[in-house]
């Protein structure tokens, strides 16, 4: 876990430094210059932070779903602890991704919110996280709470393909990979980036994923202690 901690610190520091400090010039000559994208200019730097945050929030949901599934199979309470910790972290990254994306949209697309398919899907991810925690708070006993919230996360996961693959195709949108965008044909949009930007982007994705793993470990350990303490009081 120590190695993951230091690796995530190094990766994210690199990504922040490189993402902010590397100048953007019209004709990039060396490795340390990004090309200017017309219409985006310095606003393009958001991709190094916004996309990894959205990535981590989806990662959080998938892990919550996976551990929920494991809980239903084994009835081992430790999986429920992992599931809820992962969902909590996912919520945090989801809010961060929504805020960074929304601010960027204000300056680039003209308004904070446009109901483009990907904006809709992150809004729904927020709603699912909200519903998940509301459900948990409404259930009394530990066992029922763990079981039903695992079922709900799997049910919510079942609708994910509609948002990832179908809605962006059917409804026109502003993100890359939407209907009518000939360049991006894969669901998560192909990366049309110069190689040096791509390196920074991938380092940032790795950094945020490792940060997620590190934070999840801390939260799981804290939740385990809390659970044991609550058992002792009874």
């Amino acid at each position: 876990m120590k190695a993951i901690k230091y690796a995530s610190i190094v990766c994210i520091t690199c990504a922040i430094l490189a993402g902010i400090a590397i100048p953007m010039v019209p004709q990039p000559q060396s490795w340390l210059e990004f090309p200017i994208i017309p219409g985006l200019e310095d606003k393009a730097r958001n991709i190094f932070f916004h996309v990894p945050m959205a990535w981590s929030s989806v990662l959080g949901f998938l892990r919550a779903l996976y551990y929920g599934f494991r809980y239903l199979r084994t009835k081992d309470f430790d999986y429920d602890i992992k599931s809820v910790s992962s969902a909590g972290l996912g919520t945090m990254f989801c809010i961060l991704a929504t805020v960074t994306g929304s601010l960027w949209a204000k300056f680039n697309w003209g308004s904070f919110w446009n109901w483009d398919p990907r904006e809709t899907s992150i809004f729904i991810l927020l709603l699912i996280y909200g519903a998940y925690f509301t459900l948990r708070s409404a259930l009394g006993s530990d066992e029922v709470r763990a079981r039903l919230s695992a079922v709900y996360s799997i049910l919510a996961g079942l609708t994910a393909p509609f948002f990832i693959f179908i809605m962006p195709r059917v409804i026109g949108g502003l993100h890359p990979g939407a209907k009518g965008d000939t360049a991006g044909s894969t669901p998560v949009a192909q990366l049309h980036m110069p190689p040096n930007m791509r390196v920074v982007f991938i380092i940032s994705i790795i950094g945020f994923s490792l940060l997620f793993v590190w934070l999840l470990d801390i939260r799981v350990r804290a939740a385990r202690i809390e659970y044991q303490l609550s058992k002792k009081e009874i």
Partner: protein
Amino acid sequence: MNVMVSIWAVVSKDIRSELRTRYALNALLMFVVTSVATILFALREDEVSTDVLSGMFWVVIFFSAMSGLSRIFVSEEERGTAMTLQLVASPSEVYFGKLIFNCGLTLVLSSAVTVLYLVVFPAFIIKSAVVFLMTILLGSLGFASSATIIAAIIAKANTKGTLYPVLSFPILIPLLMTVMKSTTRALDGDSVTAALSDFQILVSYVMIMIAGSSLLFDYVWKD
């Protein structure tokens, strides 16, 4: 064959107990009338587009469904009959029985809303009946398929009434977006081939939700 008989037994038991009190049916229909009346007050004599009308149409169905469809499991828990039902029928029989009952209830609900809309909104003219019928059928099936499993989940919770729409909405959004679009198509008079992609989405949604919830229902139902 035995399974079919027990599923039908669950359905007929629910129909009989519903007809005795008519609680869910009355609540649903009154909800429909009040919400349509509210929309009428808001719109008055405005010229409304088909987009707005089809959106309003499904908004009414969504909220009325949310007020009535949870009864199916909540009443079992309230009357303390859930245990007995667990003894006499297997989980999948209970699930499909309740699903069929909820499908019927949603169909009644959406036909009532359709009739009301046809009467009170002059702009609500169904130009392609096949598209509209398919949308209503698949939409009701989709509503019932996800509303039934959520009803089973919230029946175990403390705050049943408010929790139901909160939990159902994120899961119903793909369905709602699609049925609103294909209802607009029906009102604009598009052909069936134009609406085919919507029907494909609806059918896959219904299949995914029914398959998923019949697998997950065991974990919700058994204490």
